[in-house]
């Protein structure tokens, strides 16, 4: 075959491969958005809503704060924006995208030790890269991906068709994505308003026998703190009132973590700097009762109900002006 023919054949061959991959990626993106069984996807599909209070954080919000109960206690419309394993960078992305289509008046943001240490120490990954692939292309999302994952890989994900889905093909299997089979039931999250409370105790968890080595070896991360500040600033820039809170974790476990005190001081400093309230429930009665916990750091359904009530009481204090210091602030935001 002549040299020119080889070149033309190669260009045509590579071109057709790129075309096929582009078409497949288009199909994948279309399907991906509809998989609302994933909390992140469900949130991205919520639009045109107005919420009085939104709760943002990791699984310590997702599995712990009950918005349905909050609605009745606060006489308000609330939503749970928590996502399992989400560090602040991810929380920021979720809030940023959520606010594009919805409105929030007050944001209750979880602020605890796990939030301010490096994401890979707290959640085994700094950022759930696989969850927001279809949002790549948006400047803000791109900058979050670049900052929290391999920047070079980001360019591959952005510019090489299908690269991003191939990498996570264990989650996006071709049978599911190409055929668009969606067995998900979005009604679950619609009913619970984004929460997933869990009953009983997690299998294998024995209180008083835990391994906190990973946390003990950790330190406060500048990046995580910056991401927390970014969330507060984003909310403030949209006129949203911000409240920081820390859900209970099993107290004897937390006592083993000397870094916890530093983390609390750091969060208190941030709260002071931005003039936002900080409710710390770490020393509440719930945090000593093993029956309230699913594991050391997550309350079970019973504990979650108790905690949600306590959190709402605190928010009510701001609402009804029983706490002078915060009521002015809240009013100012409203």
């Amino acid at each position, binding site marked *: 075959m002549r*040299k020119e023919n080889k070149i033309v054949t190669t260009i045509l061959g590579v071109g057709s*491969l790129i075309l096929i991959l582009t078409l497949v990626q288009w199909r994948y993106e279309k399907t991906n958005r509809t998989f609302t069984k994933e909390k992140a996807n469900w949130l991205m599909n919520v639009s045109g809503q107005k919420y009085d209070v939104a709760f943002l954080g990791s699984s310590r919000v997702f599995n712990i704060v009950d918005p349905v109960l909050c609605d009745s206690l606060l006489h308000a419309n609330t939503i749970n924006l928590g996502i399992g394993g989400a560090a602040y960078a991810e929380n920021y992305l979720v809030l940023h995208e959520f606010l594009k289509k919805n409105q929030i008046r007050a944001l209750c943001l979880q602020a605890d030790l796990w939030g301010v240490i490096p994401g890979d120490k707290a959640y085994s990954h700094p950022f759930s890269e696989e969850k927001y692939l279809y949002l790549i292309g948006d400047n803000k999302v791109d900058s979050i991906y670049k900052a929290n994952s391999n920047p070079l890989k980001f360019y591959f994900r952005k510019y090489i068709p299908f690269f991003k889905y*191939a990498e996570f093909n264990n989650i996006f299997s071709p049978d599911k994505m190409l055929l668009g089979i969606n067995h998900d039931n979005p009604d679950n999250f619609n009913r619970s308003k984004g929460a997933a409370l869990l009953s009983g105790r997690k299998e294998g968890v024995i209180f008083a026998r835990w391994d906190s080595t990973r946390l003990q070896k950790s330190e406060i991360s500048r990046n995580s703190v910056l991401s927390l500040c970014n969330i507060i600033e984003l909310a403030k820039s949209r006129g949203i009132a911000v409240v920081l809170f820390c859900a209970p974790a099993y107290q004897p476990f937390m006592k083993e973590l000397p870094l916890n005190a530093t983390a609390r001081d750091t969060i208190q400093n941030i709260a002071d700097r931005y003039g936002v309230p900080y409710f710390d429930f770490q020393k509440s009665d719930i945090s000593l009762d093993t029956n309230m916990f699913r594991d050391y750091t997550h309350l079970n359904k019973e504990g979650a109900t108790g905690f949600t009530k306590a959190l709402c009481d605190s928010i009510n204090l701001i609402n009804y002006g029983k706490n002078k210091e915060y009521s002015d602030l809240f009013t100012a935001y409203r």
Partner: protein
Amino acid sequence: MLFNSFNFLIFFPVVTLLYFVLPHRLRWFMLLTASCVFYMFFIPEYILILAFTILVDYFAGILIEQENNKKKKKRWLILSLVANIGVLAIFKYYNFFNTNFKSISEAIGWNYGIPALEMVLPIGLSFHTFQAMSYTIEVYRGNQKAEKHFGIYSLYVMYYPQLVAGPIERPQNLLWQFHKKHDFDFQRVADGLKQMLFGLFKKVVIADRLATFVNPVFDDPTGAAPTSVFLATIFFSIQIFCDFSGYSDIAIGCSRVMGIDLMTNFRRPYFSTTISEFWRRWHISLSTWFKDYLYIPLGGNRNGKLKTVRNLAITFIISGLWHGANWTFIAWGALHAFYLVFAMFTEQIRYKMRNAIGLEKRKKLNHILQSSCVFLLAAFAWIFFRSETLSDASLLVKKFIVAVPLFIYNFISNEHFLWLEDILFGRTLSVMWFEVLVILLSLFIMFMIHRKQEAESFSFFIRSKPPIIRWSIYVTGVLLILFLGIYHNDNEFIYFQF
């Protein structure tokens, strides 16, 4: 750096591009630097071990060549061998022997207090030390001139495609190629890329997928059911082949792109009809190394059957030990030696038996039966290779043996559809139907390519087809790798640990 990693996706095109852009006199330096980078992705400090052996062997090679006195020549060779084996002994075998001495001393009540070394085994150590040793041995034998260019010699040991898992090259095959100028050749580059593609397919689509079913069984031998053990063993036999031959294909392919030919490491070993043929087709670069530098110098099969048995036993036990400092590898090597000895002593009887039942006349059926037998024997031996301890291995062996009568029993009883269903629907190894389908499809593709390769090179076969068919094959290959490859587990190549 792993061949199936994102880093390599960047590394390979950059290095290849630089290779062709740079003038020939600078290429060795670029390749050597790239190889250092490639190696330092694992544990950077360990490059010093390589530097040590390179220095020793480089000077040993020159001194052996310059020396006229045979005794002195030998002295330099021994020095080089001691340095290389010494490195292996410290980093790979010290803890193994230390633990065993400790156990023996405890048994006889002797207080043995030499502590274990706490360190990670340098990646691919056995590969590059063996390659380095083959250089000094060949210089000593007069088959290879000592390399005067220190950079080129360093590249011979460190050449990145085969640095960490072979093929273990001979200096006669590799060194001269670094001196030769290789221009860009479209056909050769295309062939290299095709081989890389096939290697990647074997690794990420077949081997890594099978690993997800094999690992739970071998990690928990107590909890595994006999049928699961049987299937996991068969799967592991395919996994290790695809993993290692996949690595070799990528290594050979990416070297071929640059115009440097590496030796073939696998020639469809599971198509072998005898165990000795299996060893002529499996990890060829290592088996020929042992043949040339150990088995034949020991006397090979020239001094009667008894000495042949001894030589086979020594070669295969050392080969087992080469794979890992564990009794399981020694058992694996010893088992293969037993297979060969058994085959040697029963050759006549087996021939007569085949003749008596008419198998010798039915060539095809005979071939299938013999290949199946070799596959099962090799698979059985892999149990030792894959097990963590000898007690795990013995437990798995028992379950493996029980599995066959259990199959037959289930088949005879009315439950035969149930066990078939269990396998087909993946319940035996907790596999989803989609996974079963992918495995079957991938194995079918591999089988067809291998069948084609029996007759002619697959590259030639594709080349002879019209562009539309050719490119359909390439595109399908890429799509299969992208769709069905496993990328989330950071799966290392099994042979990296050696």
